[in-house]
């Protein structure tokens, strides 16, 4: 089970662990030091023993000196010295006995006690000699006493050697203990250190890792990714921070989304509004155009028929013919209005069937020439065709393309006062056929060129010569060309004539 702790909790835990380690290190150190000092005390005790025993040897040596002196100098007071030394010896021995604990040493001291008694006896014998100087018996006694003293001293030396050896052992052992405790302390300290380091490291990591993640996420959010979230949520303060971060990011996302929605809605409304305004404008334009295109020919028809019918004026055949001619033209114009409007409406709704099949574009141009040349000649214009005879057969709706060409040629004748109208065909690029209608008329001003193909747009010739029309011819032409996956455009300089081009694809592009 993973225990979840707050950062404060972690800190407290770490501190208590460090404290625990310190306390245990202290305890271990104390025990070690105690042990060292204990062994030291033991060594000390040992060396006191040795000292006492050593002293014992010296005292014994001194003890035999007054009897010897008595034998040399014969002074009676030597006995007093001896007595004093003996007492000292006994006291010392008693003191030694108290100190010594080892059985062998006790035994030795016991033996030394015996020797002291023997030395005492021998000394008493010596001091009882009346004539000590050069006394043979005295010398013999002295020899015995010497031997006893020597024996005691050598015994003491033995014990001393042993004691020294023991002492050395003690020292070695205490040294060992010292080293051991040093090691223990060292190990404890390193374990402690390692523990603190690992804990500290993981603790620092446990803060820096989520903080690093948070920073990365904040950067993401700053860069606009409002879906960025912290996933690893701990129970500590960092976890709380991460949760607040997530909340903040979510709120930001929600508000941004709603603002975005709002913006979209506003844009949509604005667009709808503009579209509605455009629709109203187009409707007004349409009604105005239809009204004009209905009322003008109707006026002419009504009046000219009335004039003929009433027999006003000269009432000649000539006059009647003239006014009936006006009536006929006006009827044609009415018919064209109806044709254009219905045609365009159907095209816009996509309700016109196209009969696209393999056809000869040059043949279509020749048909146009037959139709339009008389109209051009009547206005005093030349009608020229310039055909590329190598054009391959392509697929198009012949009637519709003829309608486009007649619209273009009609416009050219309408807006040209003198000069010519030229229709050209050519292969353009590797996949299109181009048809161009060029005139030497008034041309179109630069600002009007982009508006040409919009419905109901009419600019007249700008020279005061107004022409009847619906403003739909070019819109219809454009719809037809688009249906063929072609393109239509105009080139013109104001006052220098205009050229209208359209291209049709030779093969339908795949894909």
């Amino acid at each position, binding site marked *: 089970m993973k225990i979840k702790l707050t950062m404060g909790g972690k800190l407290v835990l770490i501190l208590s662990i460090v404290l625990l380690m310190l306390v245990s290190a202290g305890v271990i150190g104390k025990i070690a030091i105690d042990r060292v000092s204990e062994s030291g005390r033991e060594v000390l005790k040992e060396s006191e023993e040795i000292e006492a025993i050593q002293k014992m040897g010296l005292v014994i040596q001194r003890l035999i000196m007054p009897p010897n002196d008595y034998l040399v100098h014969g002074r009676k007071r030597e006995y007093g010295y001896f007595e004093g030394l003996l007492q000292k010896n006994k006291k010392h021995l008693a003191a030694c006995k108290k100190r010594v604990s080892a059985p062998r040493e006790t035994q030795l001291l016991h033996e030394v006690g015996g020797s002291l008694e023997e030395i005492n006896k021998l000394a008493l014998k010596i001091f009882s000699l009346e004539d000590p100087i050069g006394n043979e018996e005295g010398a013999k006694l002295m020899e015995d006493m010497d031997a006893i003293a020597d024996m005691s001293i050598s015994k003491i030396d033995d014990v001393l050697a042993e004691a020294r050896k023991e002492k050395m052992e003690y020292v070695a052992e205490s040294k060992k203990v010292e080293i051991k405790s040093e090691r223990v302390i060292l190990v404890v300290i390193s374990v402690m250190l390692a523990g603190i380091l690992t804990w500290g490291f993981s603790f620092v990591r446990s803060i820096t890792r989520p903080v690093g993640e948070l920073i990365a996420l904040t950067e993401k959010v700053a860069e606009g990714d409002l879906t960025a979230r912290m996933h690893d949520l701990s129970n500590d303060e960092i976890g709380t921070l991460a949760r607040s971060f997530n909340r903040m990011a979510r709120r930001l996302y929600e508000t941004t989304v709603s603002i975005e929605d709002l913006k979209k809605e506003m844009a949509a409304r604005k667009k709808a509004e503009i579209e509605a305004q455009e629709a109203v404008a187009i409707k007004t334009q349409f009604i105005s155009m239809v*009204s004009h295109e209905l009322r*003008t020919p109707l*006026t002419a028809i009504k*009046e000219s028929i009335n004039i003929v019918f009433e027999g006003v004026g000269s009432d000649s055949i000539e006059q009647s013919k003239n006014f009936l001619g*006006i009536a006929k033209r006006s009827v044609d114009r009415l018919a064209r209005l109806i044709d254009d409007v219905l045609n365009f409406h159907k095209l816009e709704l996509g309700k016109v069937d196209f009969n696209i099949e393999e056809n000869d574009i040059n043949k279509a141009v020749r048909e146009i020439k037959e139709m339009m040349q008389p109209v051009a000649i009547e206005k005093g214009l030349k009608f020229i065709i310039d055909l590329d005879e190598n054009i391959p057969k392509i697929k198009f709706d012949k009637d519709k393309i003829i309608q486009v060409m007649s619209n273009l040629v009609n416009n050219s004748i309408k807006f040209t006062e003198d000069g010519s109208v030229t229709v050209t065909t050519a292969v353009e690029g590797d996949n299109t056929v181009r048809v161009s209608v060029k005139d030497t008329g008034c041309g179109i001003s630069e600002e009007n060129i982009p508006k040409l193909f919009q419905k109901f747009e009419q600019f007249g010739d700008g020279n005061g010569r107004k022409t009847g029309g619906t403003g739909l011819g070019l819109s219809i032409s454009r719809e037809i060309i688009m249906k063929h996956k072609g393109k239509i455009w105009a080139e013109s300089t104001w006052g220098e004539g205009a050229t209208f081009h359209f291209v049709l694809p030779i093969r339908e592009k795949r894909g």
Partner: protein
Amino acid sequence: MSKKILVVDDEPDIVQVVSFRLRNAGYDVVTALSGRKGLDLVESERPDLILLDLRLPDIEGYDICEKLKNDEKYKSIPVVLLTASIISGSVKKLESSGADDCILKPFDYEDLLEIVGKLIKKAK
């Protein structure tokens, strides 16, 4: 001496039928197919009345009318507007142009002659 009427309209057929009717009624008629030509004729012909189409390609009928009505020399010449679409000009614009009357196409020639006659008589 017969009165002179200027007919300004870009539709040749309309010009023809209107001027025929006016001539038949005893007026002198001069015609123009554009606004500019019309203004020229006002100066050179000094008509007694002007019939002016609203929808002209070069200068709008309103503007011609306004121009004339603001000119001391031509102010007194009555102007009758001809329009094929009442939508193409608001009533307000029509009033502010200072035109003396307005006729919607198609019109009855009796109405046209009546309006013309009245205005010419008034101008005398």
